[in-house]
């Protein structure tokens, strides 16, 4: 029974693909299961993983957000510039708080517009994302900051531990911001699984009208998911700075697509109402393994965009197919019941 239930779960298949893929890469290169590669891989999961957990909530609620990479970009530049201008020397945590507040505000704009206008959220967030991009480039006049303020610079070199592979003699360090990823995943997971708010998000994504009748405040839930996504986006923006030691305008280019792909691959239904944080995280791992090893898998980098497209389409095809077959099952059950009743009447 337990195994049967496991076989039905999307996460199981994603995990299976990840294991097979990593074994293939190990077989080709012999360098996948080395300490430094695993640390590097985990490091590269931090930023997309955080963003995906924010977007996951938005997608479960039946909406979509393409503005979060631009929120992250704006927060990254705004906070770094502010620190530069004021010559701030205190603890770096203030920067993260500031980024979270700005991000939450930008996300709230999306959420309020979505709840108020009741128009497709893709168009709304497409509009706001051009505003955020224009603001960053035009008003903040930013494209690159190579020398970071002191507090951030100190965090760049804050590592939890370092490893060195014996075979290749390559070293890698685990950055302290992995803790952000873990905390974000835990909080989002807790909200979605154990709170009324989480139930509400699933309910709104499944059927907004039914959720409203059941007593959920649909508008408030919409505002919440976008605000949370923006807040996580803001924190992610600053995390990226401390990871790479600089600010660059093109850090998050194309992120909206890869993160959506990761969430969808992780089993969240793009129409809303289902999915899990764990699945989303596995989706991110899968995306990263593929994109990190494209060349190793024999795919030139020029074709990487094609790969994300194919992955998105494959992911949604599977979930669309599942939805259709589930519907068919319900209909056939109803038909069977009706036939049974008719037989009983006769």
């Amino acid at each position, binding site marked *: 029974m337990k195994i049967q239930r496991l076989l039905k779960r999307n996460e199981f298949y994603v995990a299976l693909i990840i294991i097979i893929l990593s074994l293939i890469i190990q077989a080709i290169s012999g360098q996948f299961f080395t300490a430094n590669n695993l640390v590097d891989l985990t490091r590269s999961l931090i930023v997309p993983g955080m963003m995906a957990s924010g977007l996951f909530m938005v997608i479960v609620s039946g909406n979509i957000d393409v503005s979060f990479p631009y929120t992250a970009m704006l927060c990254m530049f705004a906070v770094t510039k502010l620190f530069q201008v004021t010559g701030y020397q205190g603890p770096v945590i203030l920067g993260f708080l500031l980024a979270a507040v700005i991000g939450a505000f930008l996300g709230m704009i999306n959420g309020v517009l979505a709840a108020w206008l009741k128009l497709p959220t893709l168009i709304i967030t497409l509009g706001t994302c*051009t505003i955020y991009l224009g603001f960053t480039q035009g008003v903040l006049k930013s494209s690159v900051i190579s020398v970071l303020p002191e507090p951030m610079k100190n965090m760049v070199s804050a590592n939890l531990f370092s490893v060195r592979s014996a075979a290749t003699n390559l070293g890698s360090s685990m950055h302290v911001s992995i803790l952000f990823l873990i905390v974000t995943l835990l909080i989002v997971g807790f909200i979605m699984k154990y709170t009324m708010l989480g139930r509400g998000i699933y309910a709104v994504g499944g059927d907004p009208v039914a959720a409203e009748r059941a007593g959920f405040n649909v508008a408030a839930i919409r505002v919440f998911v976008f605000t949370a996504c923006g807040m996580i986006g803001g924190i992610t923006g600053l995390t990226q700075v401390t990871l790479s030691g600089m600010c660059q305008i093109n850090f998050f280019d194309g992120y909206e697509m890869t993160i959506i792909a990761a969430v969808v691959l992780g089993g969240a239904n793009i129409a809303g109402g289902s999915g899990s944080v764990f699945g989303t995280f596995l989706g991110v791992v899968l995306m990263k393994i593929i994109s990190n090893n494209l060349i190793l898998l024999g795919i030139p980098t*020029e074709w990487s965009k094609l790969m994300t497209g*194919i992955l998105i389409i494959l992911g949604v095809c599977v979930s669309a*197919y599942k939805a259709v077959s589930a519907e068919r099952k319900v209909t056939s059950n109803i038909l069977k019941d009706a036939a049974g009743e008719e037989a009983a009447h006769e």
Partner: protein
Amino acid sequence: MNSISRYLNKDSNIMRLLFILLVTLAGLTIATGGSFLTFGQMQLVAYLFPEMGVMSLGMMLAMISGGIDLTVVAVADLAGILSCMLLKTIMPENASLPVQILVLLVILIFGMVVGSVCGVFTGTLISRIGIPAMVATLGASDIILGLAVGITQGSSVNELPSILNTAVNYRLFGVIPLTTIVFAACAGTVAFLLNKTAFGFKIYMIGSNKEASKYSGVDNKKVLTFTYIISGILASVSGILMCGHFNSARSDFGKSYLTPSILICVLAGVNPNGGKGKVSGMVFAVIILQMLSSGFSLFQNISDYYKNLIWGLVLIAVMIINVVSERRKARK
């Protein structure tokens, strides 16, 4: 005269757009000290707006059907690139003018075939597999653009035979740009399809209520697929216009057109939830947007970055105004 005013009363949206158009024109003329309202500037607007306009017509069709077509930019790029590559290979050297024009027509048809193949692909994903239009076109646009990037390896297709550039820059009687004529032809065809054919009526039906149209005997799958095919064809035409304008083809030419093309539709009164929208509104909206775009470039101190900011703000503002005015109307 009476019939005109009756017509205008019937369509308050057109009146509003005409008003915005005049205000934009007047505002830009005053702001530039009269240098905007010149024959040359107007001709430039007329020359440039079709690139965006033809693409937006496809976006409009998808929106009326209750979806959205984010592939328009990618299709324009891919069709442009493939057509230009074909143009380079099949154009004979020192060909006479009739032969050159013939080759150009072949290229145009080839581009439209590429567009319709892309349309079949996205249309099938949406109608037969049942993926929401937004995600299907988002993924498909990555695939199509990915092909374009992969084929060109990120570089541009240069040294095209001069006929394409000459043709796109051609002005009928020395006044009317050929691009405007192409836009008029496309807009006319789309208007005819929407207003005079059963197919057009079915698109509106699907956009208003998918279930109802299905149970009234409309083949939703077929109509939707066809909608995205037409959208693809229109996008490919605009891609070829773009290549003619820049005299080369690249995989990132169309990139900046996505938000404006959605903005044009929303400004034109097309309902993003489906079921509403007219070609006449589109014509006004696209001219307004091109005027703004050309007008901004007259000011040295407004960089392209602010253009993004302004497009986004206008898009959000127009959506708010549309929704508020519609709700007020509904309350009455």
